[in-house]
């Protein structure tokens, strides 16, 4: 099944998929955030599509898109027929809620914790949505693009030794 056939079959099943792209040959579609589990479950169960492996789950922060700043990205793989797919779901930064995929893919558990840790995406019904790689007391989300390059208020670096910072 090549990308065109895949796009046909996905559009016929889910008509709300939009923004079809193929960067570097990887078919990419955008789905509304509320319907993410519907799409993921649908392509998991479908016997022709069989996307049963979650390769990656991450997020991107676009500070310039209003009401759509955070984009959660799912990379799926059909291991038997070697087909890959990327799905994107845009979320507003004030209420970045999206359903968790950890009920369907156990690999999504820690990936969602990492996405929460770095971007602040709130995964609903996640069993343990806490910081995983950063220090627990951190109160900001490091990978968002809203911080200046040099932080003049940082206290952990010795200014004399490092000149500029």
């Amino acid at each position, binding site marked *: 099944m090549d990308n065109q056939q895949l796009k046909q079959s996905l559009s016929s099943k889910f008509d709300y998929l939009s923004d079809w792209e193929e960067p570097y040959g990887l078919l990419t579609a955008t789905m509304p955030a509320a319907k993410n589990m519907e799409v993921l479950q649908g392509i998991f169960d479908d016997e022709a599509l069989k996307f049963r492996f979650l390769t990656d789950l991450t997020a991107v922060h676009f500070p310039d898109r209003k009401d759509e700043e955070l984009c959660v990205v799912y990379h799926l793989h059909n291991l038997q027929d070697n087909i890959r797919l990327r799905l994107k779901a845009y979320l507003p930064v004030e209420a970045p809620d999206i359903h968790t995929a950890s009920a369907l893919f156990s690999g999504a558990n820690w990936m969602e914790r990492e996405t929460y840790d770095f971007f602040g995406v709130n995964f609903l019904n996640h069993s343990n949505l806490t910081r995983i790689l950063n220090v627990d007391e951190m109160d900001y989300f*490091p990978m968002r693009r809203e911080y200046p390059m040099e932080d003049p208020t940082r206290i952990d*670096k010795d200014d004399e030794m490092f000149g500029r910072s």
Partner: protein
Amino acid sequence: MRPVKYNENKKVTTADLPENVYTGEGFMTTKLDDVIGLARANSLWPLPFATSCCGIEFMATMGSNYDLARFGSERMGFTPRQCDMLLVAGTIAKKMAPILRQVYLQMAEPRWVIAIGACASSGGIFDSYSVLQGIDQVIPVDVYVPGCPPRPEGILDGVIKLQKIVKNESLRRRNAPQYKALLNEYGIQ
């Protein structure tokens, strides 16, 4: 029972020390210091706390080409209870800092710390929110070995410098007020 009687011999008198008298450690204690310093310096058992690339360089130092064992570090005990030299090799993240501190606290006196590499000395190339900018923010360090990563010869040079420090250290150092003040700065009892 016979009642206890204390010596009431009043012929014992005490006198004040006259001026310009040498007060300090005597000859035998300084010689003992030297012998013990020599013994400690030539049998420093290392505790490798290797996190990343400097750990690989440390493994090379321990190998047969750049043998660390010929300097007395034959036994790499991986337990803090039995080692006297903590070798921190690699990037220490802020999340790892309390663990490093715990390992340091579990070591018995006398203990020394060598920070191997740029990341352990100062955070190195990783000027970021997640990397501890130098382990001397959490534990007192004796020798810093710069390099990214330092060559095994560089690590050996650091160990030799530590040996010089250990050889010349007085036995009273760990009880001295300056040492206690240093540990206090780190919040270590």
